[in-house]
């Protein structure tokens, strides 16, 4: 696993502003050899700027970047052992597929034509574009251009590959395929991948490590399961998947009170009678008969999602989201049960009370905010 690897890149106290607006606020991050690490956050959170600082396209206002223990703040991009797959590919329109991929070798003054052609062919094979050598890049589909961009970035055998929302412009099906391919490529080559995305599902399914960012700060660093199961604050819990985040009081170790009921949980060490945020994932809530439930509420909306129904339940004025495979009728009164290990306790933070209530929930709003993410900083 990556954490056992050698530390390759260190960011220490990176701060960066554009026109007086702080984009990165004192970021520190370690990146290891052979790691697939994802910078995840909404647009404007500073993830792309972080990537550009690692690539050398921006320099930090303060703080240091180390590569293999050497400070590289002032090293220009062309001297770094780092290559980039750009957001909109940035393929050279005056060159064909072969020459686009060979570009790095030609710049590195590889004179042996046979070596160039062997390595280009090897790259084309890896990205499944055999036979496309002579095609002009503008005649390729988005997915094919994407593959050329990856091949072009990998041909110089970089130590690190930066990927800036590389799948953003592809349709859903293609995106899923490319996610798998990228993950396999990373495993096969052993190159450190630093991946930027606003898509939490993509981040969870591909990464060894996920870095959740918001407004120029790092919220949490961890494995996908850590991030999902043990979110540090309400922001992370809300951004990664759906969450019900309820006000609670930790009565004692393993005992929490919320919505007027006392629940058994697996968390401890918060002290007695401490106000906390309680996270319950919608898929961890069991629907039961009203009289036997730990909590009781009225269904306000039911949406069919394919694998499950998404049910919004009003419990004492707080609207919970529940995902269940059993149909419940709108306006029905239902009971819910929550297992101890489905309850996750978080300390109160500046994000408490801002997320995790589904009273203003609407699919339309969700879709709108997702579209506005497309245009990344």
């Amino acid at each position, binding site marked *: 696993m990556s954490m056992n690897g050698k530390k390759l890149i260190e960011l220490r106290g990176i701060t960066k502003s554009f026109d007086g607006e702080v984009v990165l606020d004192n970021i520190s991050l370690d990146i290891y050899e052979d790691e697939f690490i994802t910078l995840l956050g909404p647009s404007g959170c500073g993830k792309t700027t972080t990537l550009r600082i690692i*690539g*050398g*396209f921006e320099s930090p206002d303060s703080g240091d970047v180390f590569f293999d223990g050497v400070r590289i703040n002032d090293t*220009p*991009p*062309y001297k770094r052992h*780092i*290559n*980039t797959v*750009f*957001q*909109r590919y*940035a*393929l*050279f*329109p*005056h060159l*064909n597929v072969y020459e686009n991929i060979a*570009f*790095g070798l*030609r*710049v*590195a003054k590889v004179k042996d034509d046979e070596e160039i052609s062997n390595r280009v062919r090897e790259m084309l094979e890896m990205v499944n574009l055999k*036979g496309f*050598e*002579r*095609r*002009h890049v503008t*005649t390729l589909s988005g997915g094919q251009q994407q593959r050329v961009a990856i091949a*072009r*970035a990998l041909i*110089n055998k970089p130590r690190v590959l930066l990927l800036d929302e590389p799948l953003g412009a592809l349709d859903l099906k293609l995106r899923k395929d490319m996610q798998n391919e990228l993950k396999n490529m990373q495993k096969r080559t052993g190159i450190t991948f630093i991946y930027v995305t606003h898509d939490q599902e993509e981040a969870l399914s591909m990464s060894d490590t996920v870095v959740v960012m918001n407004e120029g700060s790092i919220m949490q660093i961890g494995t996908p399961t850590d991030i999902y199961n043990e979110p540090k604050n309400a922001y992370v819990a809300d951004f990664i998947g759906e969450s019900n985040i309820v006000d609670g009081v930790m009565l004692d170790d393993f005992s929490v009170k919320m919505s007027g009921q006392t629940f058994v949980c697996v968390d401890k060490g918060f002290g007695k009678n401490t106000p906390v945020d309680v996270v319950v994932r919608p898929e961890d809530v069991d629907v039961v008969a009203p009289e036997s439930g730990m909590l009781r509420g009225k269904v306000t909306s039911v949406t069919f999602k394919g694998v499950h129904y998404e049910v919004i339940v009003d419990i004492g004025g707080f609207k919970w989201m529940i995902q269940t495979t059993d149909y419940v009728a709108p306006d029905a009164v239902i009971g819910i049960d929550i297992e101890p290990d489905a309850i996750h306790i978080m300390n109160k933070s500046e994000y408490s009370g801002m997320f995790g209530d589904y009273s203003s929930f609407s699919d339309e709003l969700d879709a709108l905010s997702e579209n506005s993410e497309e245009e990344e900083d």
Partner: protein
Amino acid sequence: MKKSFLERASAYPHIVWSVLFIIAPLIFVVYYTFTDADGAFTTENIARLFTSNYVLIFVNSVCLALIATVICLVIAYPLAYIFSRMREKWQRIMILLIMIPLWMNFLITTYSWMTILEDTGIINSILSVFGLSVHMINTPGAVVVGMVFCFLPYMILPIYTVMSGIDEKLLEAAADLGCSGWQRLTKVVMPMSLSGVISGITMVFVPSISTFYISQKLGGGTFQLIGDTIESYFVGTAINYHFGAALSLVLMILILISMAVMNHYTDAEETERRRIK
């Protein structure tokens, strides 16, 4: 696809225009070239061109036009590059500054250069303070200065247009793949801006080689260019439409050949690019 009557009719004004002002004059030029004063067929006008006197005039014209074109390119290329990398607001201001001289009639511009370059002109007035003086007016150098000044915008604008279309991300990608600043220029900017350079060269070379006003005013008639010579046979003392037409025809052919050569280079590149295996 069959075009409607209206669609076809809308082309007629242009056809009439072309016939009246392009095709008819061309036919006249060819007619005059191959006839003598009595209207009889002759090739003497063409033969007369190849006497040393006129060959020299052609060579001089080509040389001066080439020098002016090269100087324009050397000045325009870096300027166009710098403009294209400026912030948008500054790009607009710079392009406006380049365009302003074009709003002025170039006869006026040429006259201004006369007063600047004259022996008693602005430059020499300033130099005389230091007891110096340089003879500039009525030299080939003065003609080249005039050509460069008048035609420089026609070099800058097409190159700038192409360069401003080069995405900054491409330069970043080049840097990412190991290109130093100079290599970014030679490996990305230059090949991508070639089409702009070609049209710039054509737009400067063609008016330079056929100019007669600049060479008369700044060259002072001390030497003749092809444009002057043609003019002299139509409005000068030795009016001879037939020989003037022959000179024009050869000049046109010369320009067409050089444009064909230029286009050949860009076309070859285009087809190479478009070729699909």
